[in-house]
């Protein structure tokens, strides 16, 4: 009943004010920008009413308003100006560019907050920072621009994703942050659908205090993406397009044929073998396989066009994007293309009712090398390992008539010449040109719809009820044809096949929030309660292969209508839904924007845990103090603003497979009885049950400050300590228990601590606008507990066995191997390397072999002499951005780098003695005093110089890269305005122009589950592009 009274009061108040201000006037004027040029599209509104207008092309406006009213002039990117009419009929306004962003708003999850009162550690990237960049995937927009976030490209294959770590490795399981696109939770792998010029802002929630509102799945960080919405005003059309080319930034130095033959002879003879190549010099340079597969001018282009606008009732944003990018390696089978469509709109149906929606659709098509970033085949690995003595193509009729060139399935070039087949290097290493032909046309595709719709009701002023329904629907699959081929004796197939695979994944969520904002005197409150339901992984798919189809290539191939059953193969699956239900609440309070407080609690229930621990509660608290708002703070020219803030909270993770808490019984343990050609399907238990399995919990303490200094500097610094407890991981149980797989256990504890600094400076000196900003992140990780085991061996490499180890007291995943102490220069040194009983420590060693350190001093070299010899995760990541505007010219430069990590270089196949070498092998040991770092070459490698994982394989991974340079020129407005064009800007962009590193592989930026393991990384391209921005 009280509510009714309030309503009545409000209503009569409204009526009353209308009566009093009934006298209306016509106000007109011109709106200009700082340089006096007219500003069209500025929204002019009458404060306290819904009436208003938009300035026209010449910046003119006319509005009808009560003579005592106040007019508000707002335009995005400019400071909003309020002018009381005071009886005037002409008001001209000049709007200033809002460079300070003092009233900048950040998205905080279920709402926005003024940056000045935010108490959590949140980094934002705004549209203007990334709008004109030719970025293929949006995570690249964060690289180098945000502190506390490490972005590492997984591959130079166009369209491929990056490894993202927010404040380090949080978990033994999932470390991919939670992506929330306009309120819809999307898997990290599924953000490729976003078009970067549709993005209004990206916010990274880094500390628990800000993440806690996404409790369940927030532990690895949360990235909120907000897409653009239309602005009230005239229709705006934007076009951004670029076109250019990419090329490799670096090639490896590999041996040529003469060098290769010489070294192979040496290696063979050293082992008592024969001379393999009678006359190395006669082989000359041989084939340069890298030249054969690298493309010096791979095409790249992107076009984006958007239309936006609206009136006081409805606004919309519509865009279409197109992107095509060719890979620099084996371009014929390395391509990416994407088409995007987006429609966002908002409608104010009633004063108290707003509805809106976002719909994004994308179609992606990609062609990949196959075996990308793998040492097992693929064109790049083949180019590195294939001997240069094998010819590109064979033209000698005598040779063609002979084996192997008379085999069925020999691959030929367009003139019918067979591609050369190596006599010496076999296994999966094949002529890359022939390999490319076997995959020609094959592609993968995906269609993504990500959409949400909301209804917001405001029954009482400042009380908002909002229902949001979000959904993502993804279809993906692949189509391929594999011809009959013979690439070498090991890599061949005598039957062709055609395959199609189709998958569907659907997930949705519904969220209801109720929020209320209230200010009482200087006390400002904002309270939010909400409830959410999330369903994920409603997926299914199937794959069908027909063998021995009557076709020769991809273009002609189809599924024959009738085909023998025995030549068909198929598989299908249905996923298990992942379900989460949540209740959450948040309270923001500040006193006079001086003392700030935020408290959040979220309770989540997950289908991934048993009844013992289905629910997890994740609370957080944070507080801030804006010192410079205190009365005692004298206006200072040194420190203009200062906010100190701190927070503590806990977030969780349920990123484990479904049913990990029970013992499931699985199929596929088949056996064949009698003469039946098919097997009986056997079932047996998978892993032992663990009913006490529970949430992984990450608690984080964050302390930071934000300040503005000397008017022109802004400085943000944060220190944090993040502890992940009850880490979920499969715990190895002894093999004598006979289980198929290990049970999931809350196994351990891990700590990340570090600090982040963002410093920027901007200044206008005469006509030059200058700004520079830098960020640096230091991170340390330590595993504290690891359940029952002393250590865990993770990633292995070929025949070296495991190369990474996880052990308490060390960082997650450190390189673990032997240490070398130089090379035995002569027999006397070998003989002198004995243990206490006089026996040789390395009995198989000879001069030219590595001396391995006997670290445990037991007088022999074995697995116990391994130790921690490097860390694949950088200590430091940093970025630097520079922007200079002068008149119509603009220059921006982005640099980015890491320091303090080691890279494992595993480019050469260890199990193929005949594989080619890098030219570093020319500096091998050949006699006393020749070298102390590269051992002799000998087949069989009796001392294990190459077959033991030692520091020999590690190199420093530090690099600094000029990621992007862009030079733009804006055509003067007086020229273009005649053509009704608002803005026309031309630019040239260079990507990856310089990389400073000592690393000798293709590229020091190596992503993946375990970073910095170079298996023949598809390198990032160097690109040059010319682009246009057009607005009318």
């Amino acid at each position, binding site marked *: 009943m009280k509510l009714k009274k309030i309503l009545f009061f409000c209503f009569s108040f409204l009526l009353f004010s209308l009566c009093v201000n009934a006298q209306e006037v016509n106000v007109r004027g011109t709106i200009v920008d700082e340089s006096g040029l007219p500003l069209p599209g500025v929204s002019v509104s009458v404060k306290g009413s819904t009436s208003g207008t938009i300035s026209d092309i010449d910046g003119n406006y006319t509005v009808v308003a009560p003579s005592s009213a106040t007019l508000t002039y707002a335009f995005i990117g400019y400071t909003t100006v309020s002018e009381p009419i005071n009886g005037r009929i002409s008001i001209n306004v000049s709007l200033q560019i809002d460079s300070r962003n003092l009233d900048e708003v950040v998205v905080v999850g279920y709402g926005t907050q003024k940056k000045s009162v935010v108490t959590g550690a949140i980094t934002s990237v705004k549209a203007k920072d990334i709008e004109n960049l030719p970025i293929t995937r949006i995570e690249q927009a964060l690289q180098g621009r945000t502190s506390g976030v490490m972005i590492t490209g997984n591959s130079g294959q166009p369209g491929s994703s990056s490894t993202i770590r927010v404040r380090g490795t949080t978990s033994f399981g999932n470390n991919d942050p939670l992506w929330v696109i306009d309120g819809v939770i999307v898997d990290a792998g599924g953000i490729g659908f976003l078009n970067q010029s549709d993005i209004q802002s990206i916010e990274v929630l880094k500390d628990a205090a800000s993440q806690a509102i996404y409790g369940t799945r927030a532990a690895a960080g949360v990235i909120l993406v907000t897409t653009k919405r239309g602005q009230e005003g005239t229709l705006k059309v934007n076009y951004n397009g670029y076109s250019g080319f990419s090329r490799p930034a670096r090639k490896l130095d590999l041996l040529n044929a003469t060098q290769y033959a010489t070294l192979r002879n040496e290696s063979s003879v050293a082992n008592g073998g024969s001379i393999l190549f009678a006359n190395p010099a006669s082989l000359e340079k041989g084939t340069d396989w890298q030249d054969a597969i690298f493309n010096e001018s791979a095409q790249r282009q992107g076009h984006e066009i958007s239309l936006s606008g609206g009136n006081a009732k409805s606004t919309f944003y519509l865009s279409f994007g197109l992107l095509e990018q060719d890979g620099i390696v084996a371009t014929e089978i390395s391509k990416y293309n994407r088409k995007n469509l987006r429609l966002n709109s908002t409608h104010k149906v009633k004063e108290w009712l707003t509805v809106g929606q976002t719909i994004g659709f994308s179609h992606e098509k990609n062609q990949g090398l196959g075996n990308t970033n793998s040492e097992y085949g693929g064109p790049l690995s083949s180019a590195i390992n294939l001997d240069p003595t094998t010819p590109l193509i064979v033209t000698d009729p005598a040779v063609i008539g002979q084996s192997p060139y008379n085999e069925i399935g020999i691959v030929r070039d367009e003139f019918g010449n067979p591609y050369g087949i190596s006599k010496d290097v076999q296994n999966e290493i094949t002529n890359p040109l022939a390999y490319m032909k076997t995959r020609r046309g094959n592609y993968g595709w995906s269609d993504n719809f990500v959409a949400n719709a909301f209804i917001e009701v405001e029954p009482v002023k400042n009380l908002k009820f909002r229902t949001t329904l979000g959904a993502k629907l993804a279809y993906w699959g692949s189509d391929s044809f594999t011809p009959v081929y013979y690439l070498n004796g090991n890599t061949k197939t005598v039957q062709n096949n055609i395959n199609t695979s189709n998958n569907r994944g659907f997930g949705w969520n519904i969220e209801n929030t109720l929020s209320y904002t209230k200010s009482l005197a200087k006390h400002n409150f904002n309270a939010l309660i909400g409830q959410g*339901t999330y369903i994920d992984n409603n997926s299914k798919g199937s794959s069908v292969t027909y063998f021995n189809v009557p076709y020769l290539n991809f273009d002609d191939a189809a599924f024959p209508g009738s085909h023998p059953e025995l030549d068909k193969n198929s598989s299908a699956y249905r996923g*298990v839904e992942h379900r989460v239900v949540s209740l959450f609440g948040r309270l923001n309070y500040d006193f006079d924007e001086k003392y700030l407080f935020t408290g959040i609690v979220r309770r989540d229930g997950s289908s991934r845990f048993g009844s013992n621990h289905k629910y997890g509660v994740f609370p957080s608290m944070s507080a801030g103090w804006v010192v410079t708002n205190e009365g005692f703070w004298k206006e200072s020219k040194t420190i203009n603003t200062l906010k100190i803030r701190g927070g503590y909270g806990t977030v969780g993770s349920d990123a484990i497979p479904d049913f990990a808490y029970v013992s499931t019984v699985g199929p596929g343990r088949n*056996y064949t009885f*009698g003469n039946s050609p098919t097997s009986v399907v056997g079932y047996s238990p998978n892993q032992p049950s663990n009913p006490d399995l529970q949430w992984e919990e990450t608690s984080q303490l964050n302390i930071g400050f934000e300040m503005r200094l000397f008017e022109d500097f802004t400085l943000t610094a944060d220190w944090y300590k993040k502890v992940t407890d009850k880490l979920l991981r499969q715990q190895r149980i002894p093999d*004598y228990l006979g289980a198929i797989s290990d049970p999931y256990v809350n196994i351990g504890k891990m700590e990340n601590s570090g600090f982040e600094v963002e410093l920027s400076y901007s200044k206008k000196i005469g006509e030059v606008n200058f700004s520079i900003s830098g960020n640096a992140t230091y991170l340390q990780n330590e595993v504290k507990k690891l359940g029952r085991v002393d250590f865990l061996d993770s990633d292995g490499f070929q025949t070296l066995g495991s190369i990474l180890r996880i052990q308490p007291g060390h960082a997650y995943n450190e390189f673990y191997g032997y240490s070398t102490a130089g090379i035995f220069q002569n027999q006397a040194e070998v003989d002198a390397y004995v243990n206490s009983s006089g026996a040789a420590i390395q009995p198989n060693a000879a001069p030219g072999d590595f001396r391995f350190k006997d670290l445990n001093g037991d007088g022999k070299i074995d697995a116990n002499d391994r130790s921690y010899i490097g860390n694949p995760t950088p200590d430091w990541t940093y970025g630097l951005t520079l922007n200079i505007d002068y008149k119509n010219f603009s220059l921006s430069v982005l640099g980015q780098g890491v320091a303090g990590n080691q890279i494992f270089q595993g480019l050469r196949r260890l199990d193929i003695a005949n594989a080619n070498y890098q030219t570093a092998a020319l500096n091998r040991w050949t006699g006393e005093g020749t070298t102390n770092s590269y051992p002799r070459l000998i087949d069989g490698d009796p001392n294990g110089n190459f077959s033991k994982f030692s520091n020999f394989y590690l190199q420093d991974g530090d690099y600094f890269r000029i990621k992007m340079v862009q030079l733009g020129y804006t055509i003067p407005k007086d020229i273009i305005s005649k053509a009704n064009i608002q803005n026309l800007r031309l630019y040239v962009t260079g990507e990856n122009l310089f990389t400073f590193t000592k690393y000798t592989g293709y590229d020091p930026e190596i992503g993946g589950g375990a970073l910095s393991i170079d298996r023949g990384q598809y390198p990032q391209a160097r690109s040059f592009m010319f682009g246009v921005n057009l607005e009318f």
Partner: protein
Amino acid sequence: MKLKAIKRTTALFLGLAIMASCSEDFLEADGNGTFVEDQYYSNEMEAFAGLTAVYDVLGWETFVGRIAGLNSASDDFYAGGGSSTDTNELQVWSNYTLNPTTGPQGEFWAKGYSGVFRANILLVKLPQVPMSQAKIDRFTGEAKMLRAYFYFDLVRLFKNIPLITEPVGINDYYTIPQVAPEVVFEQIEKDLTEAIPNLPVTVPAGSEGGRMTQAAARALLGKVYLWQNKFTLAAEQLALVNGTPGATSPYGNKLLDNFAELWNVNNKFNSEAILEITHTKGGNWGAWDNVAGSEGNILNQMVGPRNYRRLDTIAAPDYVSGYSFNPVTEDLFNAFSDADPRKDATILNLKKMVQDGVAAYTAGYKDTGYFLKKFAGRERNRHTGGGAFELNWNQNTYEIRLADTYLMEAEALVRGGGDISRAQALLDAVRDRADMPSIPATEQNIFNERRLELAGEGHRWYDLVRTGRAGAALSARGFVTGTHEILPIPLLELSNTLIVQNPFY
């Protein structure tokens, strides 16, 4: 109007609160066909699926396969392959540089205990399965026989092993000790003895071939006794299996007339087979990262000559290019008399074919020009259709065949002071089938005969170790007597457990 909105809002919110409250059920994920152990084994079909899972382990054949490994370690074969590190687990066993981290032990240990675990769980579940007692008894017999088989391999390969005969509770995972080998043998004998009466005398080959029978269990029991030098007991069991030398046994077994017919891949479950491990090409297997999951026989692919090419399609047989593992040693080649038809059935002499210019191949590591013909894949048998043909060979292998039990009984008789004339008759029967003249049934002669008759079938290394001959035969390879008779226990099994490494590793 606003009032209406408030009412609507309230109703909506209440509705949603109700929705949220029925979340208990909502959070029970729909398994989409996932079975949970507690509810499984509830009918005969599921019990049989559980039994099949035990059999499954018999057929596991990875690149580090049982036969390929045992061959590599013996004096009859090298590991071979593409290079000195190709399938290194086999290489280090072949040249006796194996250590706790590198070697085939991980594969064999995991295989054995996987079988044991699956048998153990089934044995616990079987009594409650609603099906006929006869079925329960038979399944129980099969599970016990299989468990005995797995333990026999484990105790021979590792000697000091934990003995687990029922599912282990979560609190005992890390506290199971090793036991004396005698204790393991006792369990094996017990399992086999208990299994025999429950097993069928014979099974219909076409539908049930490969399932355990009384003959198989007795033969295995005899073999277990022989390993322990319990000659009288061994001879007794094996005599029951063998019956009259050369004639059809009480269980219906008889030597094939033609030795070479044993290696005809279509000749499955022939009269000589007692315990046969099955393979099929019908699985269309294509997962290279899970070779063990295939029901095919990878050995056929592994031992084929590398990059084999027929220059003369008439004179050169239709072998498929393989990976050139297990090249035959000169020693074994020379051990056969040229008159012995088993030589040509066992060894593929590519050396000669190359000399004759009818075929070519690429020499692999430790190439001798001789390949293991018994298992080398043939073009005519190559799988077509789905999957990878390399992973879908369908040749079964003999775990125990009649010639083996003949020779084992003969050996038990000779070494145990039994009936020498019967031993002679048994040896003669084996040699006679190969058209070879009679030789005296001495211990050495019987031993030599085992080598020739069973070459490449995975018996030789066990025989060398069992009879104490391994040192003499293998010291040139690096074999150290007192160490290499058993494998090291996989290193990881030692961490956080009570397991102690085998001596000298």
